[in-house]
């Protein structure tokens, strides 16, 4: 007998070395170990308060966008980590938590303008890509813009420009009833400017505190002022409450009501008997001009949640999609590479492409002018689509404003 080794047997020393090398492999090649970990994306949306009715849809849309990709980004498992944004201060704290504790690679969120303004500053500080999926304050992609922040919702000033021609058809005496924070104040500023340019008069302007439960005293003031049109700037549940009380006090149909950025959930909460008004909206599930991908999304949403996809669901879906596809394109989780990929991202829209404009990271998209149907027979189907604005796609840049008009300086 020989004591040598056959070709199949491994000497003990080599076996030990091999085992040690295998055990040490994750240390030597950390990127391989990380590849097995799920990619984490932060979701920073309010979980309580009036706005929670909207954020539920924003979150559902984002989760559905991930499910459509079998919960994979860059070929790796991915997950959304959802934290609350109860106040601007708490929102920024949770943003830091997402980055430092949860190790997310990018963040989706910003349900209220007041929160989003604070969050975008934190995003720049933490150097984390942040896609704002709901807030509409002009300054987010205007003077407060930064390289890491991208924004979906059309800025207040732009939506006002889109809606003003509709308001002017009713007359030149306007009354503003707006929320007493950034969103509402933005509307009054833009609306006043547009009305002055048209030679009209502001016959009244009231700021209502957030979560005002009773608007009857405001409605009495509006009635006394006898405007041609009421221009609203109330958000979420406050708009629903106002419209209910507007109807109860016999004002529906007497004075036209207009508002920008209606959320479907806001109008669904009002009920068919009391709903009224003309609005701008980003998306409507029954718009015949929705793209095949959007129609498929609406079907999937209905199938999964048993109710139609609200505009907020689409907003959650399209922003999440833009981020996930950009990370795929970047082939990296490095923040600046994701930012560059988001700047180059495009998706088909109705005869044009959705994209973020490079100099202000604002999503370029047409808005819908919708009005409440005179007779509502389906509890979800409230709107007639009056127009897609601007009518000519070539006018998008002009409507959204030039670099000098927007005032965004990313540095």
């Amino acid at each position, binding site marked *: 007998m020989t004591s040598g080794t056959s070709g199949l047997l491994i000497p003990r020393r080599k076996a030990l070395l091999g085992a040690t090398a295998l055990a040490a492999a994750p240390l030597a090649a950390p990127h391989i170990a990380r590849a097995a970990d799920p990619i984490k994306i932060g979701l920073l949306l309010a979980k*309580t*308060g*009036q706005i*929670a*009715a909207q*954020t*539920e849809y924003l979150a559902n849309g984002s989760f559905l966008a991930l499910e459509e990709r079998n919960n994979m980004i860059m070929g790796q498992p991915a997950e959304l980590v959802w934290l609350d944004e109860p106040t601007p201060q708490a929102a920024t704290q949770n943003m830091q938590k997402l980055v430092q504790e949860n190790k997310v690679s990018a963040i989706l969120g910003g349900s209220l303008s007041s929160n989003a303004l604070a969050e975008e500053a934190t995003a720049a500080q933490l150097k984390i890509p942040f896609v704002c999926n709901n807030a509409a304050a002009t300054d987010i992609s205007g003077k407060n813009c930064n390289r890491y922040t991208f924004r979906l919702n059309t800025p207040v000033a732009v939506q006002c420009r889109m809606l003003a021609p509709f308001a002017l058809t009713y007359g030149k005496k306007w009354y503003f009833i707006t929320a*007493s924070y950034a969103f509402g104040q933005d509307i009054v500023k833009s609306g006043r400017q547009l009305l002055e340019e048209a030679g009209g008069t502001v016959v009244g302007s*009231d*700021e*209502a*505190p*957030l*979560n*005002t*439960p*009773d608007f*009857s*005293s*405001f409605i*009495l*003031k509006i*009635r*006394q002022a006898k405007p041609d049109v009421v221009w609203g700037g109330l958000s979420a*549940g406050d708009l*629903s*409450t106002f419209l*209910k*009380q507007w109807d*109860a*006090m*016999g004002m529906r149909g007497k004075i036209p009501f207009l508002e920008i950025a209606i959320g479907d*959930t*806001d109008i*669904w*909460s*009002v*009920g*068919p*008997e*009391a709903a009224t008004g003309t609005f701008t909206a980003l998306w409507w599930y029954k718009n015949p001009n929705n793209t095949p991908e959007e129609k498929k999304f609406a079907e999937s949403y209905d199938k999964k949640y048993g109710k139609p996809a609200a505009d907020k669901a689409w907003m959650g879906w399209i922003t999440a999609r833009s981020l996930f596809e950009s990370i795929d394109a970047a082939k990296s989780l490095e923040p600046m590479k994701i930012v560059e990929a988001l700047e180059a991202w495009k998706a088909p829209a109705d005869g044009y492409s959705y994209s973020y404009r490079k100099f202000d990271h604002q999503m370029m998209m047409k808005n819908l002018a919708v009005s409440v149907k005179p007779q509502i027979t389906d*509890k979800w189907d409230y709107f007639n689509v009056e127009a897609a604005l601007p009518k000519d796609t070539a006018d998008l840049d002009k409507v959204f404003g030039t670099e000098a008009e927007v005032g965004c300086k990313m540095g």
Partner: protein
Amino acid sequence: MLEILIPQIVSGLVVGSLYVLIAIGLSIIFGLLGIVNFAHGSFFTLGAYFALTLYQLFGWPAVILSPIFVGIVGMVVERTLIQKLYDKEPLISLIVTFALALLIEASVRLIYGGIGQPFSPPPFLSGFLIWGPILIAQYRLAMLAATTVLLLLLWLFLEKTPFGRILRAGSRDPEMVGLLGINLPRVLTWVFGLGCAISGIAGVMAAPLWVVTPSMATNAIMPAFVVVAIGGLGSFAGAVIAGLMVGVVIALTIQFYPSASGAVMYVFMAVMLILRPRGLLGERWERFE
């Protein structure tokens, strides 16, 4: 000027009457049980949601059952949770009832979803009335009348019935009431249920006015605390006067300085408490001092 002020005062009285109703339940519970019930607004929410469900299932007449169901939920909560807080620090009851409020809101959100539920006034109360400068929705007028009757009945119940006398005696000297052979724990369960049921009635009344959402308690609980603090803790008449005053003050602020309308009731409360720390009709209670 009167043409502007009168409609606002009327509007303020109507809104104030709703605040009274929310606050009375809170005041009764605090006055008799010594519990600062932060979940009071949640029973208001439950009232609105039970009414909505009953209306959808059985129509308008069934809505009247909603406060009874809220009262039953309140009694169960008292038996399982609140009873354990009677000999604890007031801060403990505040924290526990705050947690209860969050639990109820989350449960409602889980069952009904976060979206607001449409709920209109009954058809026979839709429409509005105009008297000179005054414009008022018929539903609001009916609400004002119903609140007035309800408060009157409640006052008669507390002041003129043997049960009411036991409640008032129990709030002042529970030990003595126990020594007289009265089952005080059972009485306290009924009191908590009654307070919750009144909050439920307010929720039923508010449902067609406001939007029925899981977070609607937020709009109810703060005015209720303000009204109770201004009126005097545990004072029935104080809560009525304070509620109506708060409603009118808010309405007049909307007329002249609308952006302050959310803060004015707190300023009003601060001024009142500086001038009269026990509130308008608050008495000195040995139990709480």
